[in-house]
């Protein structure tokens, strides 16, 4: 595979944590430049004001994943047109922690924020799959008792397959060990009484993420005069 393709393959693993979508799909990667063993990744965001913490998470992940390629010796991350471009580019390229870079404005690193948004992404993906299964005739009771193995064996449409894969990917990221298919982010079993309430909560989280996605995509298109992605 060409070096450029390899880099893009790694960038597919970098997600916007608020939107739960890869940067490559969102149009956030402006371009990459490769010189021997050095890679520069130039990326852009929908506004000049996008939250620096989320921008930093993306910058850190770009560096982390691209560095995993064996032939890569150094990665330069370059965020364009942002109110904290200088701090983010310098810090992420040097591998500094967020707290080191924004010492006066923060009181810690980004681990908690990453975790919060991992859980939100879990809820959002789970809700989509649950809604899909309910629509296709599964009852709440069946869903609560469904085992992971049974979920894996369900014959699903293409859409269903995709939703299941996405959900299970997040479930693995949260290190769940329960044998049930649908558990809370803490891996606890759901009860029949709380099921509807739980699903409503998950729906609101999914809606917030979708709002961000609609909005951010549109703003990026307008900001950089891109064709609409709809």
């Amino acid at each position, binding site marked *: 595979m060409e070096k450029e393709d390899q880099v893009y393959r790694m960038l597919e693993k970098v997600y916007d944590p*608020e939107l739960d979508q890869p940067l490559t799909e969102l149009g956030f990667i402006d371009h990459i430049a490769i010189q021997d063993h050095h890679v520069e990744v130039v990326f852009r965001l*929908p*506004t*000049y*004001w*996008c*939250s*620096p*913490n989320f921008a930093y998470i993306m910058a850190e992940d770009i560096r982390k994943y691209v560095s995993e390629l064996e032939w890569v010796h150094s990665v330069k991350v370059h965020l364009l*047109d942002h*109110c904290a471009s200088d701090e983010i580019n310098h810090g992420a390229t040097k591998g500094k922690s*967020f*707290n080191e870079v*924004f010492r*006066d*404005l*923060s*009181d*810690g*690193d*980004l681990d*908690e*924020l990453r975790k*919060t948004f991992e859980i939100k992404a879990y809820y959002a993906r789970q809700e989509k799959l649950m809604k899909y299964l309910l629509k296709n005739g599964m009852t709440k009771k069946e869903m609560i008792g469904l085992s992971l193995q049974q979920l894996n064996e369900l014959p699903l449409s293409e859409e269903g397959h995709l939703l299941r894969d996405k959900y299970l990917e997040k479930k693995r990221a949260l290190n769940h060990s329960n044998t049930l298919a649908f558990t809370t982010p803490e891996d606890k079993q759901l009860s029949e009484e709380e099921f509807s309430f739980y699903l409503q*909560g998950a*729906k*609101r*989280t999914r*809606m*917030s993420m*979708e*709002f*961000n996605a*609609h*909005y951010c995509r*549109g*703003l990026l*298109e*307008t*900001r950089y005069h891109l064709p609409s992605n709809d």
Partner: protein
Amino acid sequence: MIQTANGEEIFVIDAHIALWDGSKENQLNIHGEQFISCFYDYHKNLSPKEYYWPWDKFVKYDPETLVNDVLVKGYADMAIFQPVYLKEFYKNGFGDFDANDALSKRYPNRFICNGTMDPRHGERGLENLEKMKEKYNWQGIKLYTADWYGNSKGYKLSDDWSKRYLEKCQELGIKNIHIHKGPTVTPLNRDAFDVADVDDAASCFPELNFIVEHVGLPRLEDFCWIATQEKNVYGGLAVAISLIHTRPRYFAEIISELLYWLDEDRIIFGSDYAIWEPKWIIEKFLEFELPEDIQEETGVTLDLNVKKKILGENVARLYNIDIEAQKEKLKNCELNERKAKLNEIKANF
């Protein structure tokens, strides 16, 4: 006022408008330029094409343009100014209390001029708040918690100084606190859009009304949760309602969630003029019907009665406006003739 086909009157209050100066001459630095550019992207991203403004008009428009867009073309009977400082970005600030005040004197009973404050201004700011109340008779305050001030990139409503300012509002009878959440509130390593501090403030100050502009988006789930707990928390629809053109189904989901969690008495219309013109938003909102599946799932109703509450009745209550008395006061307003000529909408209800 909008008259429906069967003669029913809808009194409209646009609860979120601005008269700003984002011009090159007023910009202090690149941040000022980027701030207004970002607004312009919002404008172009969600407006129908026939409502696009040229850049030069967008950065600075004159007061009569506002009157025409909001009160004449835009159906509103009244509108509320929500100014912000942004003094680190603009030489004279972004909003202008005097310009708003002048308009409200030029067209009596049409405008409510809210103010703004910044708890980081300390004692001096508290004294200033008193003076401003005296001078402009502020009924409400717009808070922009992401505003920069010196090295600070924002503040929270749960900060000690914020509480002192809210206490002062309560004492002065400034009852309506409109909060916009922007993306740079410290500490920066946390979720910058978190609305949890509104919860804290709303329970500390039960006599004040907290109108969360943009219904807490992009954290709708947190907002709904807080609004369910605190009865003095309201949802301002500015921004969310502008999705009605490009993302109608998504708007249906939002509005039905809000109706489900908050009930129909705590949702307030605002166009966020001049980011968007109220005319197209109101027309589309009046025509809007919830898709059947969404209605079935949430069991909420969005009929004309509910729309009337959202478009005016709810916010009228917060600002002690008696709608029938207000109609009387506006009977001889010079704008009526122009309004009548343009307001040809006949909603089919």
